[in-house]
């Protein structure tokens, strides 16, 4: 079974022409970066409220009232509500990105040795690695988060640690979510890398040993470099999944993108506008990740390997 077939569905294929796509990415990331800088630094420099929207929300409001009852009025009232919510949503997006990136990186660091033990380990270690991956992949992420946050009340212990919640270090709830995502993602990544390693022809291993390389060297120099390339589609699919599943952190009070938009919606009941704002940002993150991984896959590709 090729690596691709264990992939949980396909990577989101980025459609749309070249120029349009880059323009859209430019506007999307441009706005996010400007907004972040404004909130962290700009607001204090300019002596403005960091939570104030940059978009002309007031003009949307007036236009909405003047054209009230018409389609255009509806549009402007949509833009007003969305504009009002964007500052909070974008702050949450930063946390969503941090959660995803850290969990993917730390997950990879755990997944590679895990996968190598699954394929080349001794019986005991192999069984342990299999047990870990099957247990994590067999239970829902949300249940895992609840075990960590409510079950073990991990956050209470984390809260005592000195650096938690200071400056850029997220508060304890987010750290619990991060730990949960790292554990969860490491199991899925280990599965992709394991099946990628197994799709490296056996001949490669024997060839390495024939040249006199030790088992470990062969794994590091020959099998892993090829295996990791086979694993890229699976890995990038996991990245896309984690961006979306990071929204589950909302249920253990982590103020990331989804929670912030939902909290606003539960206040003003404008679920349509808020879901669209969150949905568009998630879509932007997912399409950017897919495009980025597509480029990485091309640059790293070796002719004739992994088709």
């Amino acid at each position, binding site marked *: 079974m090729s690596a691709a077939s264990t992939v949980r569905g396909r990577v989101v294929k980025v459609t749309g022409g070249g120029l349009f796509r880059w323009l859209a990415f430019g506007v999307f990331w441009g706005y996010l970066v400007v907004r972040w800088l404004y909130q962290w630094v700009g607001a204090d420099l300019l002596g403005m409220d960091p939570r104030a929207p940059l978009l002309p929300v007031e003009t949307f409001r007036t236009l909405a009232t003047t054209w009230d009852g018409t389609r255009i009025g509806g549009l402007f009232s949509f833009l007003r509500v969305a504009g009002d919510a964007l500052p909070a949503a974008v702050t949450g997006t930063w946390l969503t990105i941090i959660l995803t990136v850290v969990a993917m990186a730390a997950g990879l660091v755990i997944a590679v040795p895990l996968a190598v033990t699954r394929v080349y380990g001794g019986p005991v270690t192999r069984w342990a690695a299999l047990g870990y991956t099957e247990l994590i992949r067999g239970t829902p992420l949300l249940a895992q988060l609840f075990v960590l946050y409510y079950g073990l009340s991990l*956050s209470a212990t984390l809260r005592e640690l000195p650096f938690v919640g200071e400056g850029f270090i997220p508060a304890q709830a987010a750290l619990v979510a991060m730990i949960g995502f790292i554990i969860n993602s490491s199991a899925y990544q280990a599965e992709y890398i394991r099946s990628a390693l197994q799709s490296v022809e056996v001949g490669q291993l024997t060839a390495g040993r024939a040249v006199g390389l030790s088992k470990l060297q062969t794994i590091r120099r020959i099998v892993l470099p090829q295996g990791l390339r086979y694993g890229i589609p699976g890995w990038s699919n996991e990245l896309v999944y984690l961006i979306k599943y990071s929204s589950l952190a909302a249920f253990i009070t982590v103020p990331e993108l989804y929670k912030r938009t939902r909290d606003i919606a539960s206040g003003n009941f404008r679920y349509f506008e808020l879901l669209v704002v969150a949905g568009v940002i998630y879509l932007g993150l997912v399409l950017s990740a897919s495009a980025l991984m597509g480029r990485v896959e091309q640059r790293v590709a070796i002719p004739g390997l992994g088709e």
Partner: protein
Amino acid sequence: MGAQSGTTGEETIQDELIANGELEESNYTSYDNYVLAVEDLENGNIDAIVIDEPVGDTFANQRPVEVAFIYETNEQYGFGMRTDDDDLTTAVNEGLQTVRDDGTYEDLTAEWFGS
């Protein structure tokens, strides 16, 4: 500080504390429901929650928490209905009136909301 999202308790925290800078926004957590808020209060994740008085009293009797103080917002309790649902509204109001006239209203208030 904690509160259930979308409640007047949350609004009070947003307007009275966060807006005028007395409380850092990162120090406020909103919860799906107030029971989760009390759990986190017990776990020590948050130091205080803003909640409706009667619910606060019940938790105070059941759990190792206490009511710090009452912040009077003279909010009223009410039934939420669709604006165009007139016959339901009249039916509920009539029912309320009869319950008030024959005294059951006081008994229920005493029973469920204490003194």
